[in-house]
């Protein structure tokens, strides 16, 4: 009967779907699953894909997120090696590395339980590691003395080894300090110190400026004077050169020193008797010597 065949096929499909739901399970990418038979863990964890199972209550499937999960610690006040109170907050990236061990360690594979376990581990390791280092290892102007990375590595190794020893099935992928702080009352003291540092900088800037400006100006004056003095010296030298050059013509004048002197006097006189001079003559000086004896009425001219 054809009608019955169709009914059968439909029924078979429904049964197959139902069976698939009962006897298989999917593990999604990024997940890992552990199968227990009557509560006992069976075989290695399941990779992503489709898997077979016996239905409940024979077998049970626990799926875990295999990805790296973030966890960050709350603020924690610790003492550094040099007895300075420091507030730190740590973040970690952790993941379930061994699902079977994880399931054994925490009831029903509870992530919350795992995180609180992780938190207590971090807390004690944080205190231990910070207590081994002075504040100068955390903040330092000299990069060689700064041990920020070492501190983080130390913490990471410590947490990692403790996780392994206890076989929690958890692995730390990375660990870092998220925040460094100081207790509230200390910040006030730091403010006061910063303020006085600033004040020092202010007065230094003022005084340095004045001193430097005076230095620059004095230096400039000195340079200017030197330049001028050099120029004067050079001018004198040039003048000397001129005199030396002129001296070469001296032998010419030596042919007749009398004439030379006469010519010089004449020149000097020419220059002296330029405009705006007043001259008084008597009759012995040429060309007025022409008047000498020529003016007989001269004495009668006088009162």
């Amino acid at each position, binding site marked *: 009967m054809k009608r019955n065949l169709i009914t059968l096929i439909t029924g078979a499909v429904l049964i197959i779907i139902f069976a698939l739901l009962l006897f298989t399970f999917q593990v999604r990418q990024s997940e890992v699953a552990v199968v227990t038979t009557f509560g006992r863990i069976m075989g290695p964890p399941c990779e992503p894909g489709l898997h077979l199972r016996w239905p409940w209550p024979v077998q049970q499937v626990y799926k875990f997120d295999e990805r790296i999960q973030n966890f960050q610690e709350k603020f924690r006040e610790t003492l550094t090696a040099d007895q300075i109170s420091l507030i730190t907050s740590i973040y970690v990236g952790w993941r379930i590395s061994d699902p079977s061990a994880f399931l054994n360690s925490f009831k029903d594979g509870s992530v919350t339980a795992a995180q609180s376990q992780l938190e207590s581990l971090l807390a004690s390791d944080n205190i231990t590691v910070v207590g081994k280092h002075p504040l100068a290892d955390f903040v330092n102007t000299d990069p060689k003395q700064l041990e920020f990375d070492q501190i983080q590595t130390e913490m990471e190794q410590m947490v990692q080894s403790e996780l392994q020893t206890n076989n929690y099935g958890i692995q730390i992928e990375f660990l870092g300090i998220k925040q*460094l702080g100081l207790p509230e009352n200390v910040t006030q003291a730091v403010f006061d110190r910063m303020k006085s540092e600033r004040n020092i900088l202010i007065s230094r800037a003022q005084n340095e400026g004045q001193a430097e400006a005076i230095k620059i100006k004095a230096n*400039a004056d000195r340079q200017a004077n030197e330049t001028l003095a050099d120029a004067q010296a050079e001018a004198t030298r040039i003048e000397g050169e001129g005199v030396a*050059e002129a001296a070469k013509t001296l032998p010419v004048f030596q042919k007749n020193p009398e004439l030379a002197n006469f010519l010089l006097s004449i020149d000097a006189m020419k220059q002296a008797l330029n405009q705006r001079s007043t001259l008084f003559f008597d009759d012995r000086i040429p060309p007025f010597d022409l008047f000498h004896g020529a003016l007989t009425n001269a004495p009668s001219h006088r009162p």
Partner: protein
Amino acid sequence: MSDEHEHNHHDPAPGPVTPDDAGSQALAEALRSSFAIVKFVMVALVVIFLGSGFFQVGTQEKAIILRFGKTVGQGQEALLGPGLHWSFPYPIDEVVKIPITEIQKVASTTGWYAVTPEQELSGNLPPPGPSLIPGVDGYVITADRNVIHTSATLYYQVDDPTRYVFRFVSASNTIQNVLNNALLDTAARFKVDDILYSDVAGFQDAVEQRVSALADQERLGITVKQCSVVSIPPRQLKYVFDQVTEARQNLNKVLDDAHSYENYATNSAAAQASAIISEARSAQARYVQSVQADAKAFNALLPNYELNPGLFRQQKLVEVMGQALTNVGLKAYLPTSANGKPIELRLMLNREPPEPKTGAPAQP
């Protein structure tokens, strides 16, 4: 096809089942038609079921198909680009879409004072308290143990979408922690004045490098595109920090003034010096030339002089006198007195005779 098939075989069927009962025939008819409707609905459901497997991937994303939870394809082949794609519908396949070309942004959370975004937008900031409260006010400690606020914004691109999605529960959260850590760590290496004033860009670059290094180390599968950092002194100390800035600006101004004075002084000295030297050069040249000219004249005059020195002198003197007298402003002739006594002459001279005539009042 199947409909036709069934009709052909059902046609002879009514014969043996119900020969002449009109009621049961009508029932069979009704059953048959309702059965056809059910079949049609089932086929439609199958088509809709398969059709629901079509999905679209946008230009700025990639998609990965998970078949029974497992990635289809390996590595880059698993990534589906933009366009229309088909997969089996749930529960066989699952489509995971990952933003990729889009630049993602994340901001640091641990370096700034307590303020909500609304307060920041409105500019209505809470007044600074006398101290910083741990867990409420964020800040970083600098290398010289100052406390400042700093905030970083990181822009990044997802390089390895598979890792980004399948290796981290919340990759952006991890990146935020990395950014916070980088900010803290970099601040611990820089001095407060470098971060705030003298090496702002250097600090920013160092933070960016640190983030990149950590992202590589923790294999986040991202590329850092840009990292911008803003740093301010604690608001409680803003006034005194501003004063330092002001003092430094004044310092620069004073120094600038000094330098401009220096420039002026040295330049003007150099100008004067070159003036002195060129003056000396030209004086020298003039002097030498005049001496040479004199020598030439001397050579020319010498034969004349040697002919009769007395006459030559006389002539020359008269000539010069003549020239001089034309130039001179005032001339006075005093003849010798008859009795041979010298004539007494009194002159009244101004200290500075402004005019040639002032020296005039000479009375014989």
